[in-house]
């Protein structure tokens, strides 16, 4: 499989719009650029247009307006067959009447390889995903995880310019999911592939991506590296979608260079101003960035207590509304009705423009 990285190509969307029927806008004026050899995730709630975007890269949907380039070549009007792109489907879409080996060889047959080479490449692909010796089986004789890997192998052996994943893990159980996503990331990095990956699971996106494109209502909400999105969400939507932030109204008392002084329910806190002016603003508070032990801070009552194994989950009520917080202290949990003064962690809370 060596040399695959040399084929990896960039993907560019230039003001692409997709309209279904007369007036159902699935993707609205999206521009983005994906560098070769990177894994980029399209993330968003269902119906946000991420799958349509992916299918437009594949050539399964045609853009209504705008331009799509793969590796500097305009492919806007090319159908799927003629694009050098392969895709791993949510349902895997393994051909149930073909064996695993036939499935993996399927695309090679149409790419002009000799029989011997087809077999060689297909077997290499299977061993890459750790399925040596499974070639003779039917897809129905494999477990879900194995089927998923066959689907990956089938797409990989074509050494496509771009490899697409459409929610590839949604049919796997939680434990397998973590394992397979690490495998995908490893293969992608080893082979230097350009991968576009669709998911609605923010944790999955944070874990595998070089860059994440958050989509909302058919448009891009924010593009950035995982850390950027988590630490500096562009708006309340992104803040909430990635890492379920508590959104609390606050008052910016003073701005001093890059830093701002804010007050929340009488508690004062210093944090990066992110270009905001004094006045009302929103504060995004990650559940893990709330100090649950009693001390200086906001007066609150414990409303809900949930034990989830490694940690406790609490819902607090107070003047600020409701706050969701987690705590690692499972040995001496709070009880419903307890009064407590909770605080903000020194770093972590972030100001977002009030959208």
């Amino acid at each position, binding site marked *: 499989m060596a040399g695959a990285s040399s084929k990896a190509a960039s993907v560019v969307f230039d003001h692409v719009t997709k309209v279904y029927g007369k007036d159902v806008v699935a993707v609205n004026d999206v521009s983005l650029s994906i560098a070769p050899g990177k894994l980029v995730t399209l993330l968003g709630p269902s119906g946000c247009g991420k799958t349509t975007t992916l299918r437009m890269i*594949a*050539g*399964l949907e*045609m853009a209504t307006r705008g331009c799509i380039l793969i590796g500097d070549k305009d492919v806007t*009007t*090319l*159908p*799927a*067959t*003629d*694009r*050098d*792109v*392969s*895709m791993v*489907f*949510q*349902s*895997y*879409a*393994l*051909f*149930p*009447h073909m064996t695993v080996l036939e499935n993996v060889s*399927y*695309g090679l047959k*149409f*790419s*002009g*390889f000799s029989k011997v080479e087809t077999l060689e490449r297909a077997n290499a692909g299977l061993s890459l995903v750790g399925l040596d010796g499974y070639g003779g089986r*039917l*897809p*129905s004789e494999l*477990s*879900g995880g194995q*089927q*998923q890997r066959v*689907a990956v192998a*089938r*797409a990989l052996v*074509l*050494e496509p310019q771009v490899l*697409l994943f459409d929610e590839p893990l949604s*049919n*796997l*159980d939680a434990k397998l999911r973590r394992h397979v996503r690490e495998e995908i990331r490893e293969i992608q990095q080893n082979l230097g592939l350009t991968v576009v990956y669709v998911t609605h699971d923010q944790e999955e996106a944070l874990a595998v991506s070089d860059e994440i494109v958050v989509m909302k209502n058919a448009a891009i909400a924010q593009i950035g590296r995982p850390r950027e999105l988590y630490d500096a969400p562009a708006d309340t939507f992104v803040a909430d979608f990635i890492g379920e932030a508590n959104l609390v109204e606050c008052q910016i008392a003073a701005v001093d260079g890059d830093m701002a002084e804010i007050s929340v329910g009488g508690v004062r806190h210093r944090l990066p101003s992110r270009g905001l002016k004094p006045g009302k603003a929103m504060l995004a508070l990650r559940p893990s960035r709330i100090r649950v032990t009693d001390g200086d801070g906001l007066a609150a009552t414990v409303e809900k207590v949930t034990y989830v194994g490694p940690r406790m989950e609490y819902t607090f009520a107070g003047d600020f509304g409701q706050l969701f917080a987690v705590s690692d202290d499972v040995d001496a949990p709070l009880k419903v009705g307890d009064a407590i003064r909770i605080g903000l962690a020194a770093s972590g809370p972030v100001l977002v423009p009030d959208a």
Partner: protein
Amino acid sequence: MRAVTTEKTTHPVLIFWIVTGWVGFALLPWYGVEDFWFLDWLTEGWPTDSDYAPAAFLLGQGEKPWLWPLAPALLAPLALLRRRKTDPAYAYVLLAAGGFGFAWLIAQGLGIGIRGWTADWLSALFGPLEDRQYGMGYGALVVASALLFLFTQGIAARGAINGDVFVTGAIGGVIAVVTIFVFFPIAKMLGAAFITEEGGYSIPLFFAKFFDDHIWGLGCLSGTRCGVAWNSLFLAVLVGVLTTLLGLVFALVLTRSGFRFKRELRAITVLPIITPPFVIGLAIILLFGLSGAVTTWVADLIGVRPTRWVYGLPGILIAQLLAFTPIAFLVLIGVVEGVSPSMEEAAQTLRATRWQTFRTVSLPLMRPGLANAFLLGFIESMADFGNPLVLGGNYDVLSTEIFFAIVGAQYDQGRAAILSMVLLGFTLAAFYLQRFWLGKKSYTTVTGKGDSGVHPQMPRGLAIPVYTIAALWGGFTLIIYGMILYGSVVQLWGVDNTLTFKHYLTAFAVRIEDGGIRWIGSAWDSFWTTIMISTVAAPLTAAVGLITAYLLTRQDFAGKRSFEFGTMLSFAIPGTVIGVSYILAFNVPPIEITGTGLILVISFIFRNMPVGVRAGIASMSQLDRSLDESSLTLGANSWQTFRRVILPLLRPAILAALVYSFVRAMTAISAVIFLVSARYDMATSYIIGRVENNDYGLAIAYSTALIFVMLAAVGLLQLLVGRTQIGRRLAHEQGGS
């Protein structure tokens, strides 16, 4: 690694159709040869004799100059061989050449016939024409296909359907054949309704004929006879309602009861489908006719003279119920099984009793099935020809009237056309009423997720009548078939009941002499013709049906709705109407095929195609679309995807379409009766002939033999097509578990 087709300058598909076009133009006989299936023409003066000459030779000899414009249409695409597909000229030339050539071919075919110009205004415009031409043959057929597919490649090159050559070609092909073999004949027939005996057109005459008392009279309300239209309508509604009810009864017994002999019951209910249509009518005569077993027994019992009571509405009704209940059953069993058990279970956990569940959940969800079953029963009854002919007595119906208008002493094409219009009007109205009744509600209950529930049993109040009816009707069917078998082995039913094989011997005797077999039985001719025609028609029907289904389920294109309507239209058209319209349309050039085997094959294809389409659509919508899409992203084009992914997964649908079209071709009578000729006689029309001569023994023996042949054929097909390896469960269904 992928070769990008837009940049290639070689186009194998284009080359193929250009070569095909030239073969048709320069090598194959342009006009129709006597026998489509044989190659006698090769030795009989080809290529110079003008009867068998290819178009190029005709032109070379200075004949048929109107074929000249086809030459540039076939030449122009040659200029494109070195060009790229993205070149605007590529699409433009193909559109122009293919479109013009195809249009010209049709125009000259319609404009010039056996007596020169076919219309007065043409000779007024171009002056008199001394020449003439006959029906189109191989050459014209091949050139027409080539031009059509050059045109569709032009459309594809313009970017339609993502530039997909296979899909545009398939759409163009299906539209062309449906237009030629469904719309054209129907239009021709509608036109015939306005033609006077002198050959002119007259609208008053049409109205006079249309509102004839014989068609619309309401005499039966005051004691005399009603018009045929009312007779047909009344019968069809009755048959539609009763077959639906009986079908539902059997479907319920099979799916919602603890009945033990389900396999046997299924076999009984399916038996009538492979029975030639009027055999049941014969058996009814043997039971209930003037000298029938039941009639004489009852007459003796209550001491009255036996009557001919069964001839007329009662006889037709019983025969049609026996014949068409299985169709309703097959429609309903799918729907009744398809109602998701979890919905019924949900209703029960919401405190509905079994009866309430059935009434409020199960029954409403079966509505599409009930509507379809009724529609089928209605149309089949309207179109049925054999049973009214045998049992009708004085109860005239449209289908037999049409037949007598065409073949009887009256020979009145206009009248036949008008009666056909009435018949077509009724069936189309039923079609639309059904759509209207079903409305826009979604009845989809199969979601693709595994459904592990179990159908609840019928409520007791329903079970008792259902069992009773099923038992009575099942028993009755068995008796009828016993009669058929018995009737085929007695001298003369009702008169001389000694057992004999003489009917079988008359029909199917063979003698081995001179080292060969001589088929001396009187039935062999029509038997072999039937087998041959059915064998040719079945795979073609399945192919056209499945390709259409593929286009309808997997592709989006402008005008898809009307495309669907067009392909389903021939389903709503009764066979009698098809038969009449084919005679009117295809006994003159440009397509002159009456009296050949070809017209039989074609009529079967378009009569039975809708079933192939339905079967295909049903199973294709169970195949996840991502299967095709993944094939496409892996570099296969749409034809390769169709052949390697969809077709192999469609085996059950292929089998259903093959079996159905084969069986229908063997048992059909309504359209066939108009289209057979001395040379190509079909089994069913031969049997009808025997019946008309009161040769019941032979007719029944022949029919019995056909039933066994069909059973064998169905078994053989099942073996040939084989079972799909994967069963019903698709790969992705296992994913989450």
